């Protein structure tokens, strides 16, 4: 009876999962494989500020889509706010959110769908720009004249002149005129600003452009800055770093000029985060083209309907059950011994950030340092909770040390060790010490290596792009995973390791 119940439940769950999966795959045409290249991007800005209780007004720039990218759809999510968009000459399009009364933390969203245009818009139709030469004074004026004169001597036309001015700012030698004008530790924004001023000073219309680089799954995109120089009757881009020159296809211009991105009145602590993601073209197309109500609802109520930041989170979250299923199989069917029930899956999650080889190296190092500290503490006879607390501190110190050390050695990967689950590591170290003392080092290493091996396997599966894609696009597959886990819950056969353990009995 119990068995029947279990099989029925698993069957129903698996049927629901497979049914939805096949429906979405075959009828709605959701993509089975992650696409190599799509031309639709989603950009989302989240603005947050502390309202002071009275009327509040927030204004920010929104992209206007010039060049190779166009904004095909945009939306403003802001409960209770009035929204006005107005062009601001010379800078771009400004959106103003306003409300009569606001209390506490306010969150406003702006979302845009950006598509690559088939026919790039020719920006030369812009009106002939006005030249606004800056007024440098005294020493600054002398320095500016010296830089532009040096550049002019080596240039052949306006375009090369502008490029040379920018170059002299980019590799400004310490103590030189350029360094004097830039000030200490200039940001890219400062370089862009000054280059624009100097190029204008040299008699060429120029402006600063602020924008972002569209990248797949970025939760925290930063603004980058570049120049546009008006020569030969049209605007030409001039990039400050190589990175932007290479990413030129994915550069989304947002607004122009050295003005702040967003401003607030009637509130404080304004902050913004920008997330970008590659959208699934087929999915969006289905939603937009086939105007059937049910299907649109399905997409609205899927993970695609979430804010981009949450989507990025769910990409990770949805693969955890796969790791857990592997763990269950390894523990209950194979019989691998691990420390802690779900520790290997957490380790695998940390490996996603560090990469496998470095992850294993860092993990072993941190555990080794922790074990050494734990064995030393053994002599001091500390009580359990303070002892665990000491190990937490040692683990954090070890992680900080390793991060700094590996970064100094030029290993960028080292920066992600901070993501290791510190408390879990601590419990692992404590358990390992106890097992070491009670059952010997061999058993401790067996369980430690077991955990690491299971973590590695989970990582390899959870990292596979196809797995991540499948479970994000078809979350209903989790029902199938659940069904499989339920079935293993009543598996009463031998574990593989038991066959070895009881081999003496099989005569």
């Amino acid at each position, binding site marked *: 009876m119990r068995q029947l119940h279990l099989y029925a439940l698993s069957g129903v769950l698996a049927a629901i999962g497979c049914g939805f999966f096949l429906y979405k795959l075959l009828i709605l045409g959701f993509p089975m494989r992650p696409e190599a290249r799509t031309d639709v991007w989603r950009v989302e800005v989240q603005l947050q500020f502390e309202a002071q209780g009275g009327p509040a007004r927030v204004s920010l720039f929104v992209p206007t889509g010039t060049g190779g990218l166009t904004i095909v759809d945009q939306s403003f999510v802001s409960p209770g706010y009035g929204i006005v968009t107005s062009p601001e000459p010379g800078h771009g399009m400004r959106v103003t959110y306003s409300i009569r009364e606001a209390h506490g933390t306010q969150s406003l969203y702006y979302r845009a769908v950006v598509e690559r245009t088939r026919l790039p818009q020719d920006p030369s139709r812009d009106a002939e720009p006005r030249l606004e030469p800056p007024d440098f004074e005294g020493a600054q004026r002398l320095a500016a004249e010296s830089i532009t004169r040096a550049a002019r001597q080596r240039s052949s036309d306006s375009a090369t002149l502008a490029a040379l001015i920018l170059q002299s700012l980019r590799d400004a030698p310490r103590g030189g005129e350029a360094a004097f004008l830039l000030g200490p530790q200039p940001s890219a924004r400062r370089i862009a600003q000054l280059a624009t001023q100097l190029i204008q000073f040299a008699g060429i219309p120029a402006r600063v452009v602020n924008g972002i680089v569209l990248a797949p799954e970025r939760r925290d995109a930063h603004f980058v800055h570049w120049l546009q120089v008006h020569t030969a009757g049209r605007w030409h881009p001039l990039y400050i770093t190589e990175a932007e020159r290479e990413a030129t296809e994915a550069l989304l211009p947002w607004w122009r000029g050295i003005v702040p991105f967003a401003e607030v009145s009637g509130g404080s602590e304004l902050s913004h985060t920008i997330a970008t993601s590659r959208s699934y073209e087929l999915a969006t197309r289905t939603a937009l083209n086939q105007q059937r109500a049910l299907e649109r609802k399905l997409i609205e109520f899927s993970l695609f309907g979430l804010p981009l930041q949450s989507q990025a989170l769910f990409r990770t979250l949805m693969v955890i059950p796969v790791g857990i299923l592997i763990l269950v199989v390894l523990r209950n069917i194979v019989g691998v011994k691990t420390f802690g029930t779900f520790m290997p899956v957490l380790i695998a999650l940390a490996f996603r950030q560090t990469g496998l080889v470095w992850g294993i190296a860092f993990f072993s190092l941190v555990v080794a340092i922790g074990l050494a500290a734990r064995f030393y503490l053994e002599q001091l006879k500390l009580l*359990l909770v303070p002892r665990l607390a000491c190990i937490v501190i040692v683990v954090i110190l070890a992680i900080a040390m390793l991060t700094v050390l590996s970064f100094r050695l030029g290993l960028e990967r080292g920066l992600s060790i901070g993501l290791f689950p510190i408390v879990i590591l601590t419990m692992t170290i404590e358990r390992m010490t106890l097992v070491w003392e009670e059952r010997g080092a061999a058993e401790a290493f067996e369980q430690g290596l077991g955990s690491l091996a299971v973590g590695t396997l989970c990582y390899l599966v959870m990292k596979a792009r196809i797995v991540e894609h499948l479970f994000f696009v078809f979350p209903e597959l989790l029902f199938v995973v659940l069904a499989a886990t339920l079935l293993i819950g009543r598996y009463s056969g*031998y574990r593989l390791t038991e066959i070895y353990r009881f081999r003496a*009995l099989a005569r």
Partner: protein
Amino acid sequence: MMNWLATRRALARDGVLGINRRNAQYTLPCNPRDRYPLVDDKLLTKELAARAGVAVPELYGVVEIQREVRHVPERLAKYRDFVVKPARGSQGDGILVITGRAHELYRVADGSVLDDEDMCFHVSNILSGVYSLGGQTDKALIEYRVNFDPVFEAITHRGVPDVRIIVYRGVPIMAMVRLPTRLSGGKANLHQGAIGTGVDIATGKTLTAVWRTEIVSEHPDTGNPVSGVRIPHWDTLLDLAARSYELTGLGYQGIDIVLDRDKGPLILELNARPGLAIQIANQAGLGPRLEMAERELPNLHTVAQRVTFARERFAHARA
């Protein structure tokens, strides 16, 4: 691979119980959750057994809060030998057997010595829950150290040998004697290196022995043969085992009994998740015996009937 499949088939044919099957078919359905504390907390087990008139090692004292820890040496002063154990310990972890004293120091069964500070630290660790299931805070028990029956003298290296009997709904199913070795540090747990010797349920005579995963015939430290030893008070042992079902209400449990030179059989502890190595010691699977008992259960009404059934049906063929 073929070899593994063949081994698997042979194990299945002999009815060797795997951990999944033990959990799914026996411990989960037969052992009600609310009964677990009775056996997981050795203090409760002791009280339960004392109320039912079953002999247990005498309790010298309980340490429940950290404040009491520093008075432990004073409380221990009047005892030359004793055992300190966690009330909720698992798999024999955290048990300290003190066999005597040397000046200010305690002699431990494994041959090492401890001072007062070490003793307090150990007790304090027990209270913190270092050895307990799930790490909850715990109590430390101080109790009578068993002077084991000389019958096992020749085949024991320090420590206390005990008899483990698996009991299924009141029917003794399988038994073994666990003999400490030098490797096990005087402890009677197989995974710590003790020897497990199968016992013929009918006669109480020891059969083959398993040490780690191999079959052995002699004690590795003393060199004496471990099979053919007759366990004294065997009737009492079977009786205790059969009664333990009514004591705890657990349908599938392991009962650990020690034989004291003066006090006879004492129940050491009960186990709601008894290990499976007993099958290797007996060179037999638990499966067929459990099924046989299950079929026969409706006809077994009294303790005596259950014991008789076990003696008749689970006699070892070669004994």
